[in-house]
């Protein structure tokens, strides 16, 4: 069941449950983002791309996996847009598809080390696969 | 003996218009020669908030088939807040009439500004068409007041 780009953008909006039109493009989210330089597309662009239905590039980009979910953008946004929620919605739209998990089970063991807390593994599973 | 329906049904419509916006809007549709049916008769009130639900019931009692209330657009009331109160009152009244099973199309509120002569005429044309389709007011009539 392939979705076209517009439907995909719609889906992301639905998952987020939020309105990207509230954004006034001030860029405070991108000014606050600690992972900005790791990203190809940045928080304010995420919101804009979802709004415009220009999401294929976004979903293919590694940017969505760089978000640290630190909520700095959510906290500081003057328009209550919640960019982090859109980024998570984009990830969900991807990993909910068959075979699209970002984190594969077999990739996990080599990543582990002695001291790593359970929390790291649990949350990586929650965030990166379904 | 069957009474034959020969005469075309011409509804009686009462339009309450606020002095500052809608009454002026009605004047403007006249100035611009925009037609609407003669069934519509306008009563001038200072503000939509002057219209008591009793007036609307009274109109139906005395033989109106439709009642429309026109006022300034929300936010533009000459008295600042009058139409906001009118809006709540009419919403609740209309809902109650509907609750009693009276056709909800018979009552309407429209915001018409002094500049909207065309909107006034269009609104009245539409309202008269709606009421004509609906037919005579039977559910909120007072048989004593019926025209012979």
């Amino acid at each position, binding site marked *: 069941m392939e979705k076209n780009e517009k439907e995909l953008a719609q889906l992301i909006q639905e998952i987020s449950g939020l309105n990207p039109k509230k954004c006034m493009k001030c860029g405070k989210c991108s000014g606050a983002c600690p992972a900005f330089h790791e990203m190809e597309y940045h928080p304010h662009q995420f919101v804009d791309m979802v709004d415009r239905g220009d999401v294929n590039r976004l979903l293919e980009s590694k940017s969505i996996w*760089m978000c640290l979910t*630190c*909520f700095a953008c959510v906290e500081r946004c003057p328009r209550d847009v919640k960019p982090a929620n859109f980024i998570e*919605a984009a990830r969900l739209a991807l990993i909910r598809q068959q075979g699209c998990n970002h984190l594969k089970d077999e990739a996990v063991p080599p990543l582990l080390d002695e001291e790593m807390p*359970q*929390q790291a593994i649990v949350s990586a599973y*929650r965030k990166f696969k379904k | 003996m069957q009474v034959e329906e020969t005469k075309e049904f011409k509804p009686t419509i009462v339009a309450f218009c606020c002095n500052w916006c809608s009454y002026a809007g009605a004047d403007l549709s006249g100035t611009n020669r925009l037609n609407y049916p003669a069934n519509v008769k306008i009563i001038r009130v200072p503000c939509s908030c002057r219209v008591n639900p009793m007036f609307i019931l009274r109109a139906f009692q005395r033989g109106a088939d439709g009642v429309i209330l026109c006022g300034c657009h929300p936010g533009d009331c000459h008295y600042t807040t009058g139409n906001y109160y009118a809006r709540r009152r009419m919403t609740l009244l209309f809902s109650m009439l509907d609750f009693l099973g009276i056709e909800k199309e018979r009552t309407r509120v429209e915001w018409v500004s002094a500049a909207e002569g065309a909107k006034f005429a269009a609104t009245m044309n539409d309202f008269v068409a709606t009421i004509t389709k609906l037919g005579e007011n039977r559910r909120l009539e007072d048989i004593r007041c019926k025209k012979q």
Partner: protein
Amino acid sequence: MVYSYFPGCTLKNKASDLDLYARKSAEVLGITMEEIEEWQCCGGVYPLGANETAPKLASVRALVAAKEKGQDLLTLCSACHHVLKRVNNDMAENENIRTKANNYMQLEVPYAGETKVVHYLEMLRDVVGFDQLKAKVVNPLKGTKIAAYYGCLLLRPSKVLGFDNPENPKIMEDFIKAIGAEPVIYPYRNECCGGYMAMENKELAKKKSSTVLQSAKENGAECVITACPLCMYNLKVNGGVDDLPVYYFTELLAQALGVK
């Protein structure tokens, strides 16, 4: 005061220190922590999707268990605290999630966010009181310059968590003062350490955690305390500043109270 206690996955395993010291300290402070029976892992992250109900159910179970006992729900791990508080907020304010969760749980009395979720630090501040804590300290950590690291999950989003001022918090600094040490204020104490990436993207995690530790060190810190096992791990392993030890706040608390 008796609390329902939600330890969470990490405190039962890798971070058992955090748990142990917290319990011992609580005893001294006259607080009883009753671990919830059969608690389930909160999942470590709060699911942000509007239609994600199932991943929130574990939290709802814990919240309901506390409600049934008529107790507040105490947490230690900042992630558990974050997830539980936000799920609780959903249950109180998001009708869709409340209805779905309640339908699923089939409780006799539906749950609507009645439980109060409290972080251990909030308990120290609001129930014990830092003054009272100070009075109970037997080994004050005199002169030690300690930098508090808050991270993200304790503070943001502040409207839901209501923990402290998200940009200029002071609860941990007040805590540091209460145990007799000297707090170090540094600008990156509420910036992300990159913890969620600790497994998946080590480079990023290193970059972010070293910024935090560098900043603390530049401002004269001798050690750093945190409330999050993941932050702790990340700062320790990826922080790249060797002579700056990172502790759980409970460890220093136990030390100050003489129960370590």
